[in-house]
Structure formats: C-alpha cells, structure tokens
C-alpha cells in the first residue's frame, strides 16, 4: 500500500480542528438571518456587505467549549445595539434604555446565534451564558470565520473565533 497523505495524521489526537474546517460563512449568515427574523422582526434583513467599522463598538458573545473551543462574537456600534434591543423588547421597551436592557437583549441574540452555530459543530460542547462588553481578542487568525453584514444600513459583524493561539509549526 502506498502512503498517501489523507490528512489523518493532522487530524490525530494532538491536532485540533480549525473553525474553517467545520463551518463556512454561508452557514453563519443563514443562522444569523434566521435569528434576526425571529427575534428582531419578520422584515429584518441582513445585507451581506461590509460597512465602516463602528465608531463606538460593543460586542456580545457566548463561548463554546468542546472538540472546538472558542467564541461566537457579534459586534456593532453602541447605538445599533440599543436599536436592536428596542426591537427585541418592542412594547416592553422602556423610554430610557438602561445598560442592563442592552446586555439582556443583545446578549440573547448572541445566545441564539451561538447555540445554533454550536449545533453545526462536532459535539458534545458546552455553551456559556452570554456576555456583553469588549470583544475577546482573536487568538489565531487562521481559526476564524467572520461575516460582515448591514442591518438597517449599520455594520454588524459576526465572528466565530478560536480561543487558542496557533500550534507551533514543526521546524
């Protein structure tokens, strides 16, 4: 038998999968679009176009721990995050939006998108409670699947990013 490189060795026990081997942008986009329609509103379309980076960015994310470990991070401008929260709260939306309202609503969108991304990955994996704040850093640019969309003309990015730095390359 001739030795052909099937990639088996690289997928061995000491290797770990990269997100780009597990999910693609189109899947992330369709998960996000479905979440937006159900949570934000029936006519709320995400347009797959990159916008300028938001001036006052805020992120919401959940962590996945399992065969692949990392975070699903939504990032947008503060005002857009507030607008999203108002859309979710609808008639229950207070006149003055508190920080905790944004943490609640923007965090729940990350929970829904993240839970469905997790289901598309090999399991079993654990899912953390959502957090809102400054996005966790990208540890490995090769372990990243990111989409940029516009919602009501404002930029929103969704990044599925590994929590671990790249493995050292063989000498």
């Amino acid at each position, binding site marked *: 038998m001739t030795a052909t490189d099937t990639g088996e060795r690289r997928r061995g026990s000491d290797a770990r999968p990269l997100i780009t081997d597990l999910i693609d942008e189109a899947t992330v986009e369709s998960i996000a679009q*479905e*979440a937006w*329609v*159900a*949570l934000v509103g029936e006519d709320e379309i995400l347009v797959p176009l990159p916008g300028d980076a938001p001036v006052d960015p805020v992120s919401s994310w959940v962590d996945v721990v399992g065969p692949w470990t990392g975070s699903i991070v939504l990032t947008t401008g503060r005002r857009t995050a507030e607008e999203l*929260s108002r859309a*979710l*709260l*609808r008639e*229950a939306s207070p006149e003055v939006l508190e920080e905790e*309202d944004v943490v*609640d*609503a923007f*965090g*729940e969108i990350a*929970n*829904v998108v*993240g*839970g*469905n991304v*997790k*289901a598309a990955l090999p*399991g*079993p*994996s654990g*899912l*953390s*409670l959502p957090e809102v704040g400054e996005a966790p850093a990208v540890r490995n640019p090769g372990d990243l699947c990111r989409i940029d969309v516009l919602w009501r003309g404002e930029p929103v990015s969704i990044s599925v990013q590994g929590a671990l730095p790249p493995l050292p390359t063989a000498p």
Partner: protein
Amino acid sequence: MRALVIDDSRAMRRIVSGILEGLGYETQQAGHGREGLDVLDGGWLPELVCVDWNMPVMDGLQFVSAVRSNPAWRSMTIMMVTSESEQTQIVKALAAGAHEYVIKPFTADAIRDKLALLGLLPQEASL
C-alpha cells in the same frame, strides 16, 4: 389556561409570553429555574411551563428534574425553549421529563403547532 415562562433574558420572556398570551394563556415569568420553582411553591400551578436551558442559578435541565421529582406537579407539561440544539442535549431534556423541545429562534406558529399537538391550545385559539 396558565403558563409559566422561565428564561434569563427579559426580552425572550417577553417574546414567549406575548405568543402565549396571544393564544389565550394567562402567564407568569421567572428569570431562572429557582425562581420558577418559587412560583410553583407559592401555589400558582400552570398547565404549561416553557423553560430555557442556559440560565444562571438553576438551569432548565435542573428545573425539569426538580419538577419531575414532585408528584404534585406531575400533570404539568414542560416545553424546553432553548438555543441548545445539539441532539444529545435534546435527548437529555426529554429523558429528564420535558414533553417538547422548541429550538430558538422559533416562530409563533412553531409554538402554536407544538401546543396543538400537546392538546394545550386554549379553546379560543383552537377555533
């Protein structure tokens, strides 16, 4: 009919409660499993409980197990409403005693269809 909606997200509680009230349910809300058990302990017994999985203090799976260990609450129907959509997790929840499983994001029609299957549509909504 009464429904208890348990989710750590107030926005999500509003969405689920809004759908159930639209179907004719009277609802109460709780922010995690422990708070949900407090409502039941207080004597407000619903026909239906919609419970999230990922919550602080007491998660949905622990809540289901706690309800199922009390014979007085046996008639309550429990529906998990969660973004936790791995097959192994769904099996775990059903084994613990949940009747139905709805994956977030869901539509109002999806909730209505599940309730119809369970025979839990209030009369005005089933017409």
